């Protein structure tokens, strides 16, 4: 592309657009992964509308809304971390990335308390209390644990991914001229956010 233009020795072959495109292609596989589960959810929800409404009452809406806010805020700090590195504000970028990781952890801690409260009441896959309920409610909680669980795994992966980016920002591998990795980690993180944006109303707000 620009072989005549580069200054001697400093030219590194790089394709940021291609890199981001690759990341988007990966995100589409994630879309299909979660999409399949949303399909399953919608069919069962259609079949057991009343049971789903009843079961959703067990979930804590305040907790869910709070976690939504936590994840949305983490998306903001992630995108600001990219702007910061573009402006060569390295320390600020690292700080924003650390806040993002902290918020992700906070989300998981909330989820932990939410799940353990349910476990306490015997509402977990195979739990006595749950098995005594109607089949529609059992399906609701089955989907709840699988979908929020898989989402939780994505949050954990995202945390590690951002932690690696923070390290690379510190060492200078990611800098104001080369930050596509941080952008891609950001894309992943925003996708995790988007999935939660749909999970939240479908599980918490259908009472």
């Amino acid at each position, binding site marked *: 592309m620009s072989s005549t233009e580069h200054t001697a020795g400093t030219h590194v072959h790089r394709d940021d657009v291609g890199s981001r495109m690759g990341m988007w292609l990966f995100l589409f596989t994630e*879309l299909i992964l979660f999409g399949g589960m949303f399909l399953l959810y919608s069919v069962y929800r259609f079949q057991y509308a009343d049971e789903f409404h009843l079961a959703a009452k067990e979930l804590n809406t305040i907790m869910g809304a709070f976690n939504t806010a936590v994840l949305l805020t983490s998306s903001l700090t992630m995108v600001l971390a990219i702007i910061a590195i573009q402006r060569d504000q390295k320390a600020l970028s690292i700080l924003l990335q650390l806040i993002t990781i902290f918020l992700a952890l906070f989300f998981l801690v909330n989820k932990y308390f939410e799940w353990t409260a349910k476990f306490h009441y015997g509402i977990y896959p195979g739990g006595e209390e749950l098995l005594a309920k109607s089949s529609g409610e059992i399906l609701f909680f089955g989907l709840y644990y699988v979908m929020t669980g898989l989402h939780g795994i994505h949050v954990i992966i995202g945390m590690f991914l951002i932690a690696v980016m923070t390290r690379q920002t510190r060492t200078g591998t990611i800098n104001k001229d080369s930050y596509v990795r941080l952008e891609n980690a950001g894309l992943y993180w925003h996708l995790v956010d988007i999935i939660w944006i749909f999970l939240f*109303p479908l599980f918490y707000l259908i009472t």
Partner: protein
Amino acid sequence: MQIHDKPHEHSHSYGAYILVWLALMALTAITVAVAGMDIGRFTVATALIIASFKAYLVLTVFMHLRSETKTFVVFVIVALLFLGISFLLLFSDYSFH
């Protein structure tokens, strides 16, 4: 061309992102408030419309789809289209059982 060596530039400022974040938070509050009201079968539809709008904001602003080339937009539309087709086929099959 020198431009190919330069990293992708986004013309957003910190403030623009904070505004979008505020909009997302407000939409979350609205969706919770609407769910508390009794509007029957429109509850789910309203929640999904608000969720879709939030996802649109995240895609276009946070994920920079607005400032990417057309190719990216076409990619996303095709991916969503196929997901839409899956839903359509499944429900057309399901409702005739």
